[in-house]
């Protein structure tokens, strides 16, 4: 399986990458880690005329906290997210996510930005970033704009609201508050496989233990990454007791849109969403109140 012919350009800077994208428009694809794109090229499911390689843009590889926000450079490799002390200590939901993406060798090269911009409903970061309420920085010829994650994916698989001449350059996540916590749980047949189902949950509690923010994202149970809005609503203002968690889990399962395939029948996947949501919310509660 050999890709069809294309032109290859290396971007030496973000500005150069954008100029190339601006020049080639929808004929161009951005090559980051390539672990989704190169298989697509090999299967001839994608046939861009031009690849713009951004792997030399080392200034897009960073993980840092500033002004109450976590900034993740779009080219950050999954292995660096997984190994980061800051992430393990302050953002365990992101460590949960990084360590179940593909396998360790793939994670050496695969990028956080690519995992999002590919917009595969089976990818893991979309659900987590939906739960966290992340914002994405898109850089284009006119400068930067911020896209809230809930407006980043469209109603179609593998499609985002990025313009053809825009590059995803940064992911921003609100820093944790004193009483916040999240978890990502993925059910997979084996290492390296896509999820049968995956659930990300993130909560923020006030001093009295009431939920002031709830985010729930679902992986691979629909045509797009799913934000379980009604389930989130059920949690707001509650004390996150077991009864409301069970209720929200049932609601998240109702919001899933799984189809039957080799990973299991739709009913089974829906049941797994309920179970995983329950467990993720309990773990989020535990982490929000000082546990592991």
């Amino acid at each position, binding site marked *: *399986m*050999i*890709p*069809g*012919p*294309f*032109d*290859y350009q290396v971007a030496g800077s973000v500005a150069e990458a954008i100029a190339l994208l601006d020049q080639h428009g929808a004929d161009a694809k951005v*090559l980051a880690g*390539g*672990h989704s794109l*190169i*298989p697509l*090229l*090999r299967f001839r499911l994608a046939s861009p005329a031009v*690849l713009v*390689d951004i*792997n030399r843009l080392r200034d897009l590889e960073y993980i840092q906290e500033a002004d109450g926000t976590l900034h993740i450079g779009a080219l950050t490799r999954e*292995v660096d997210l997984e190994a980061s002390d800051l992430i393990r200590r302050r953002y365990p939901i992101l460590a949960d996510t990084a360590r179940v993406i*593909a*396998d*360790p*060798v*793939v994670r*050496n*090269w695969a990028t956080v930005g690519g995992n999002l911009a590919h917009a595969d409903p089976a990818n893991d970061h979309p659900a987590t970033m939906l739960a966290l309420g992340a914002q994405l920085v898109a850089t284009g010829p006119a400068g930067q704009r911020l896209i809230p994650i809930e407006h980043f994916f469209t109603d179609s698989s593998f499609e985002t609201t990025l313009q053809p001449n825009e590059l995803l350059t940064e992911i921003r996540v609100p820093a944790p508050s004193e009483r916040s916590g999240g978890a990502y749980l993925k059910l997979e047949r084996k*290492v*390296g496989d896509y999820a049968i189902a995956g659930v990300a949950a993130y909560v923020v509690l006030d001093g009295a233990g009431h939920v002031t923010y709830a985010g729930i994202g679902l992986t691979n149970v629909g045509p797009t990454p799913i934000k379980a809005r009604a389930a989130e609503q059920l949690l707001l203002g509650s004390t996150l007791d077991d009864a409301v968690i069970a209720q929200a889990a049932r609601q998240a399962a109702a919001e899933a849109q799984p189809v039957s395939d080799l990973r299991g029948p739709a009913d089974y996947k829906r049941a797994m969403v309920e179970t995983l949501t329950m467990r993720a919310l309990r773990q989020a509660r535990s982490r929000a109140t000082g546990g592991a």
Partner: protein
Amino acid sequence: MSIHHIRVTINGKLYEGDVEARTLLVHWLRDSLRLTGTHIGCDTSSCGACTILVDGKAVKSCTMLAVQADGRELLTVEGLEQNGKLHPLQEGFHVEHALQCGYCTPGMMMAALALLKRNPDPSEQEIREGISGNLCRCTGYVNIVKAIQYAAQKLREPEQVPAGSGGGGE
């Protein structure tokens, strides 16, 4: 379709050539340079047979373009042996009988090398996680884990580390 002139250091030696943009790194290694120790298994970045080190990190060379390797340093299984002496990983795979058909072995050893560079004294669980991107359909992994433990121990004895292997416990 673009053609690119690339210069890549592989196992300490500089290689140059013209490649089509669409040429996969593993195909360039095997078909153009005749470095056939790196195997092609699944073709879809699942099996890890094509694992090599790129700038010290394990990468599946079926999922990287040859042109992307321009200016980088690669280590393939051919670079493990030094001056006729097997690398401790190769020795370990031999002593512990860690292969049957041998198809996964080069990739398995390169993934293990990357693991041991990062973590010179891994637990059994860490070894199993470290090679979880590499499939073996013969051994059941038990002897592969033993071989990596053998190599880890040998690499931790500094006088046993072969010079210039690009790997080991540094």
